[in-house]
């Protein structure tokens, strides 16, 4: 087991705890935007898809990578936009529309 992977496990564990700590503080009011938002963030698998779609290694991996980039981009772009669209609607009393 390489050093990199052990570090990876530490990172995973700490990120999980940070996520747990922050997310338990998010009011149920915003739980739907939260789901759309974290979904957009985990569209970061785009990073892996980009390399697969562009490495010219084989026809198969280019096709699969292409589909992966497509799916991940829909999530990232659509996810952030729809989160913002929802959050824009949450207004305080007397707030303008």
């Amino acid at each position, binding site marked *: *087991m*390489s050093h990199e*992977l052990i*570090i990876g496990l530490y*990172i*995973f564990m700490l*990120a*999980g705890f*940070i*996520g747990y700590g*922050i*997310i338990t*503080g*998010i009011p*149920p*009011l*915003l*739980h*739907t935007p*939260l*789901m759309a*938002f*974290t*979904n957009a*963030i*985990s*569209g*970061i*698998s*785009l990073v*892996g*898809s*980009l390399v*697969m*779609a*562009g*490495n*010219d290694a084989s026809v*198969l991996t*280019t096709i*699969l990578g292409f*589909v*992966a*980039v*497509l*799916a991940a981009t*829909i*999530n990232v*772009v*659509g*996810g952030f*936009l729809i989160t*913002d*669209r*929802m*959050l824009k*609607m*949450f207004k305080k*009393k*007397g707030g303008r529309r």
Partner: protein
Amino acid sequence: MNVTVEILYLVSSLLFVLGIRGLTHPESARRGVFLAELGMVFAVAGTVVHPDIKSYVWIIIAGVIGSAIGVAMAALIPMTKMPERIALSHAFGGLAAALVGVCHYYLHGAEHLSHFTMGALGFEVLFGGLTFTGSLMAFGKLQGILSSRNITYPGQNAMNIGLFASALAILIYITVNPGAAFFFYLMLLVAFGLGVLIVLPIGGADMPVVITLLNSYAGLAASATGFVLENNVLIIAGALDGASGFILSIVMSKAMNRSFTNVLFGAFGKVDESATKTQASGAPVREASVGDAAMILSGATSVIVVPGYGMAVAQAQHAVRELAEHLEKSGTSVKYAIHPVAGRMPGHMNVLLAEANIPYEQLHELDEINDEFADTDVCLVVGANDVVNPAAKDNPSSPIYGMPVMNADLARTCIVLKRSMNPGFAGIENELFTKENTVLVFGDAKDTLTKMAEALAS
């Protein structure tokens, strides 16, 4: 290791964490989204300079098409369809993770993969595949393409447990023998099948738990991708998503007083038939006309609205606000009581009421408002059923006994808007409907609310 790229990834990880922290308050939430967007730009910028990328043609084409679809979906999907859109996005997330995993295995084969990497890769493909088909099933059920009733057949649980056990066995086998390509692809197939079969039997009312669990799986699959590619920003973003889905599914299960296993291996299916029968022999209900209901409301000084999935189906959120405006004009206080599992996903009702321009200070959580019902003149139930069922408090033989519910029955008068006398989603009789201080107004909720508002205005 390219230092610039690593620093970009580091900054983007920080921005993701700060972004999510923004969501702890509605005031700071949009700034949070902006920070995370910035983080995503940095992460993508750090990746496109990757030395392994030789051609940008397909990346650009996929990126442009994907962005166009993403923009169109974000702009056009009505708020009432949000659970469907979230289910679809989990499917895309799972698919992307699974495909990256398959590509990685195909390219690097057995000989270059350590046992640890192979384990992470297997996990990624297993959970990615399962999330993909499972989320498509959830989407189908929410959209009404598939029956949203519980679909059961004999030996179902044994079959699902067996499949899951065999998927895990294959995962362990390929971790030990990374060269076993046949088993790797077999596991992908089993994962696809598992996603279909696990979600198939789950009824519509349990969707909040299913959606949040799939959210968690999509995140874990992304995190596993990070282990395979040795990319820390992926590990972090996936862990955040996984934690979020996990917490939400705990919140949902608690709000239904059920365990994960109970939801996944569905006890509700069995309850259905007997409960529907008792409904038919139930006590008489008091039906009121729109005019009667408006009369009751005009005499009230305090009103609590309890919305449910029926409000989303009837798209009645704007009509609710119109009625509330008329009431507030004459000095009546109007509050909204939101049960955690009202609707088909966490926070579903809040988003709809916010869309109707209702200030968020008026939206109250269960614990916050539940003691106020007893001092309230009118409780107006708009398309909610199980979340206002008093049987959960006092009938130990009820399938939902123990679930925290709104004290709608304690309000002086309870007006229930209902489409028909058909039993609710879980098919459980609701004693609230036959109580002495309850009146039912039948019809389309949006239509009824609009007419009530007109009656109040005149």
